């Protein structure tokens, strides 16, 4: 096993709100190896984006971040702000969900790519622009030299997301955080963008964290998966394992698959109920109120993330699930 590009240990993020503090991320641990893609899956509000923003150091000042975040072994949370800024866009980069609003309408596509090159590689304006055009070619923008001189409003949504990818990858980051990069795009464009990301990842050896709520995307584009629910990681496995043998009832629900062993504890077609109020989360397993398999212990005590099989972790008192279903 290679040294991970990104290691997150016991990350917690708390926001002070008018109605008390809110713990959006609670004890999350993850890691991604160079050249691999980790998909982080979960509903909105599960803490996926907040975790990514915590890595980048882009959370608002009101956020309190705890735990450890290491990029190539370097503790990011211990860095002074100026040093962290120098890492952003250089060693680590991020792509956002909304290509329509993520580019500045007042500057050309080329200028916005060149800017990153000037900051991190100290290129002169003309050299940076030439490099930006080359970068736009690498993200397969046709007629890149002309497009580089155009403004965001003259580009399609897919093209804008390609520009965003070009900005992110311009300085060859070791880590790329992609926060729902295709959610706002047409289905056909989605596939193109994800294929492009995969290709660039193989070329550069960048570690990718792909945040998504779309399990279809995970199956095709990620090697590893972490499922998040209400600020915690509830299951971690390779993509193949997760789809073949989901262990956490929430993952099972997400997959929309009913357990084949018919038992007294019912079928899971969709997940009943709603995400808990994060200001006042349930004391035990946060999924317990919605879980068809919940027992008294689930409500009282939070389950730790534990290994059920080599490389397969789940946070469930009732794991392995097959046993529960078999016994019933």
């Amino acid at each position, binding site marked *: 096993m290679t040294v991970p590009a990104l290691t997150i240990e016991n990350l917690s993020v708390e926001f002070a709100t008018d109605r008390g503090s809110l713990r959006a991320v609670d004890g999350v641990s993850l890691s991604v190896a160079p050249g691999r893609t980790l998909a982080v899956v979960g509903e909105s509000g599960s803490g996926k984006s907040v975790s990514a923003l915590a890595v980048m150091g882009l959370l608002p000042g009101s956020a309190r971040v705890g735990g450890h975040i290491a990029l190539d072994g370097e503790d990011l949370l211990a860095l002074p702000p100026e040093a962290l800024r120098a890492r952003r866009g250089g060693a680590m980069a*991020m792509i956002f969900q909304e290509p329509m609003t993520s580019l500045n309408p007042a500057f050309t596509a080329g200028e916005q790519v060149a800017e990153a090159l000037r900051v991190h590689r100290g290129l002169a304006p003309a050299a940076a622009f030439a490099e930006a055009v080359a970068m736009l070619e690498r993200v397969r923008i046709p007629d890149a030299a002309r497009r580089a001189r155009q403004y965001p409003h003259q580009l399609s949504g897919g093209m804008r997301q390609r520009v965003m990818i070009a900005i992110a990858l311009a300085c060859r980051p070791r880590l790329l955080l992609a926060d729902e990069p295709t959610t706002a795009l047409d289905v056909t464009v989605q596939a193109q963008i994800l294929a492009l990301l995969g290709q660039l990842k193989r070329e550069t050896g960048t570690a990718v964290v792909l945040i998504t709520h779309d399990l279809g995307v995970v199956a095709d584009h990620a090697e590893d998966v972490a499922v998040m629910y209400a600020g915690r990681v509830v299951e971690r496995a390779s993509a193949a394992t997760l789809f073949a043998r989901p262990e956490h009832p929430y993952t099972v629900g997400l997959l929309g698959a009913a357990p084949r062993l018919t038992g007294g504890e019912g079928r899971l077609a969709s997940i009943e109920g709603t995400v808990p109020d994060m200001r006042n989360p349930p004391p035990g397993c946060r999924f317990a109120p919605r879980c068809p398999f919940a027992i008294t212990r689930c409500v009282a005590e939070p389950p730790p993330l534990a290994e059920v099989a080599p490389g397969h972790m789940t946070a469930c008192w009732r794991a392995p699930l097959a046993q529960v279903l078999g016994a019933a």
Partner: protein
Amino acid sequence: MLVWLARRLAQVVPTLILLSVMIFGLQQLMPGDPALILAGEERGDPQVLAQIRAELWLDRPLHVQYLHWVGNVVTGDFGFSWRIREPVARLILQKLPVTFQLASMAFLIAVLIGVPMGILSATHRDRPADWLANGIALFGISMPNFWLGIMMILLFSVQLGWLPPSGYVPLTEDFWQSVSTTIMPAFVLGSGIAGVLMRHTRAAMLTALSQDYVRTARAKGLTERVVVWKHALRNALIPVVTLGTIEFGRLLAGAVLTEQIFTIPGFGKLIVDAVFNRDYPVVQGVVLATALIFVGLSLVADLLYMAINPRLRQA
């Protein structure tokens, strides 16, 4: 671009026609007979009055008077002042540079204070710097010009003796003298506008700073200075430019009270004197010139929008 300019200028024509009718019509509603005022001592003599009326076309029907005036204006003839016996155009060209200098200085002061303060206040939202900037802006907006003017004269001219309390020296005569005679009235005029500009800059910057592209700029690893002054400010400028051109237009239209306090012989004084003397050609000429200035400024504003926002460039 040329097509756009031509279309834009064509739009101005109906505006100006409507405006000329309004200027002419409103003036007719003013009480007082110009002939009586011009006759002076001889106002009792009906023959003199009739003579004056005939000379000034006041005995013709209104529409004839109007067409006569408009016809002359189109050829560049703004008429003669009834009172001072000088061409209106010359009067305007005499006073306009004075007012232009005063307005430019006031505007410069307003922009140099208002815009940076608005940016500072947005980036330090809900912190002491924000409260201080808001306090200063409120002070600038709510301070009456005449009071601030008098207080400044008392402090800088009477107490300290640093600046002349009144009068005006043209720029062409002596640069520093000219600046020292106009700096106080310019500050008085600029302070209120600085406050308004600060409030608008703050609001526009707060909006811009919450946009996704600002997060992208930060994610690129740009310094906060570049994020604020390049990425956010560029987009926040549009409402500030709109307001700025309107305020500049209002400054050029004359600052009656302030010019009075500092005895600056500008546009404001010209129009007040003309109204009191029922000097119709001067009133009409000055108001029309002001309208033309506004039309020109709104054209400048449009050009600035296009420079700032590339989306407005294709048309």
